[in-house]
């Protein structure tokens, strides 16, 4: 036994050696965010190894996509990251539009940004609230959901659905905004701004929250890149990549003329003139606290983007434009496009063969790569750190299993 200990650095020895235990965390567990199953090898309270088992939510979405027309597949993208279905719709629509070399109207472009960023806020609110739950505090979750409900109300007005919207489709939107919606959206933003300060008080700067997240699950920038982490997880490690700025031109063209800065922690300091809490002393770049904080920053960033898009959208004259036909034929060839979704870079791949039904459909999930780094982060941590690490990665099983 002791020889093994000497050879393998990864096995941790501590004061009193006890029996190793294999523990199943999930698939039914309060803090695995859906049907994720984590197999923990624990030595007392210390986790020596952790292995995620996935696939409990597999629904053959990609294969189904090869039997439907491109527009018919939109509802299936809703069910991938069901917390940010608008962004999923957008990703798939843009990919197919890239294949078709189709460009939506100016008005639709601003509306897409408006809706997608609104949904990003909703998604981050869930991530934030559920992270509080993971750490054992219940109230921020409900505060987050209270605000999210308001966003869902807005989205419901737009498309009639609260979770699986299928609103953004290939070639535009299913409908234009109802009258008075923009005012209601602005009213929401105005009352939402001070609420963020509450979240900072309850979570971001809360002493216990900081103790639980600072210097826990530190993801170095190199490792983040090696494992293909994207989105807030990557930016939490201090890497300045955001596809809205650095992506393919068909995607970044959407954001042309928008002023925004990528929410990334550089030198432990976020360079904007908003009021933010200071970074706690214990926090290291790349730890759970930073990943969480990047999401909080992105909420503010999205609010800015929404305000800008509301301006531009209301300045746009002319019609929104009709979406493409349900049976629009796809040209021969393929297209791959990654977009910046709330969870990270979501990629869609489509191969057309001249019919209206795509020959191949694939999705590249950001949460999948983000989850892959969890075993590394959890090695040698305490059991209580596992929810805090997995929660900070903010994975959605619908997207991983598809």
């Amino acid at each position, binding site marked *: 036994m002791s020889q093994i200990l000497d050879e393998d*650095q*990864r096995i*941790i*020895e*501590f*004061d*009193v*050696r*006890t*029996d190793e235990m294999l523990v199943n965390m999930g698939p039914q567990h309060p803090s695995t965010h859906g049907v994720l199953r984590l197999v923990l090898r624990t030595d*007392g309270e*210390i986790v020596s190894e952790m292995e995620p088992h996935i696939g409990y939510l597999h629904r053959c979405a990609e294969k189904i996509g090869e039997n439907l027309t491109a527009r018919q597949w939109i509802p299936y993208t809703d069910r991938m990251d069901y917390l940010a279905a608008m962004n999923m719709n957008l990703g798939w629509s843009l990919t197919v539009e890239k294949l078709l070399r189709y460009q939506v109207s100016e008005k639709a472009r601003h509306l897409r940004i408006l809706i997608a960023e609104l949904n990003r806020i909703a998604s981050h609110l869930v991530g934030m609230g559920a992270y509080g739950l993971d750490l054992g505090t219940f109230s921020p979750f409900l505060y987050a959901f209270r605000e999210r409900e308001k966003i869902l109300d807005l989205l419901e007005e737009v498309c009639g659905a609260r979770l699986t919207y299928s609103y953004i489709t290939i070639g535009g939107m299913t409908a234009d905004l109802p009258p008075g919606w923009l005012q209601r959206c602005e009213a929401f933003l105005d009352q939402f701004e001070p609420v963020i300060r509450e979240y900072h008080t309850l979570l971001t700067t809360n002493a216990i929250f900081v103790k639980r997240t600072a210097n826990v699950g*530190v993801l*170095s920038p*190199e*490792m983040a*890149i*090696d*494992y*293909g*982490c*994207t989105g807030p997880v*990557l930016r939490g490690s201090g890497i300045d*990549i955001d596809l809205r700025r*650095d*992506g*393919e031109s068909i995607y970044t063209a959407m954001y042309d003329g928008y002023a925004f800065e990528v929410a990334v922690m550089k030198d432990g300091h976020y360079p904007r003139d908003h009021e933010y809490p200071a970074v706690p002393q214990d926090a290291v770049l790349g730890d759970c606290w930073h990943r969480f904080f990047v999401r909080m920053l992105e909420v503010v960033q999205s609010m800015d983007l929404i305000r800008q898009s509301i301006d531009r959208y209301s300045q746009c004259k002319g019609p929104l434009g009709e979406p493409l036909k349900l049976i629009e034929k796809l040209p021969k060839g393929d297209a791959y496009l*990654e977009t910046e979704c709330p969870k990270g*870079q979501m*990629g869609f791949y489509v191969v057309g063969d001249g019919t209206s039904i795509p020959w191949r459909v694939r999705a*590249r999930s950001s949460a999948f*790569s983000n989850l*892959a780094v969890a075993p*590394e*982060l*959890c*090695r*040698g941590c305490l059991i209580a750190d596992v929810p805090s690490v997995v929660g900070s990665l903010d994975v959605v099983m619908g997207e991983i299993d598809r």
Partner: protein
Amino acid sequence: MNHETFGLSTNLFAFLDWHDFFFLLFAGVACVAAVMVVLSDNVVRMALHLVLSLGATAGLFFLAGAEFVGAMQLMIYVGGTLVLLVFGVMLTAQTQLVALRTPAGDRVIAGILAAALLAVLVQAAFSIESWQKPGQGVATAPTATPLGMALVGVRVDQVAEENLVRPKSGYLLPFEIVSVHLLVVLVGAAYLARAKRRRIPRSVDLVASADSTKPRLPVTASSTLVAGGPK
């Protein structure tokens, strides 16, 4: 709480009297649980029976008027030592170790010897006449204060009863010795239970040291997308 009804009334409750009743209850629980400690093979059940036994003993102490000792028994023994023991059981619990069986032959021999020992002790207990005289019943006066004062060196009871000019010195010295002893034990136990401690390698350190000791972690396809993706 008078004993005059003793023997006259046929009523069971009056016949027994509460003090006796509780004595019998506690003594019964203590003895039966002690026997169960011996008989059970499972360590955790042994611990449970031991708790019952020691808890009932604390009850006996209360009945004997030694309230402080009883509470001490509950706190230190039952609340502290036994929780520690069960903790130890859990730390070392492997299924085959929880129940280590004793050979039946050993049990028989031990039973005979135990019976002999018990007989001697019981005989001794009833051998002296003055021990058998019934007491006055229920404790009324507190003993905690004189106990505390005895521990800091003042023997109130001795003063009271013998009117001594120089009292016995009390228990200040033993008290000190015990405290030092406890400290030594604390240090000793901490030292004994300590394995050779090794710094827990965090994942970050592992990656940092990965270049020299381990093959570098495989670069996934998606990471090239991130690192070398379109700008």
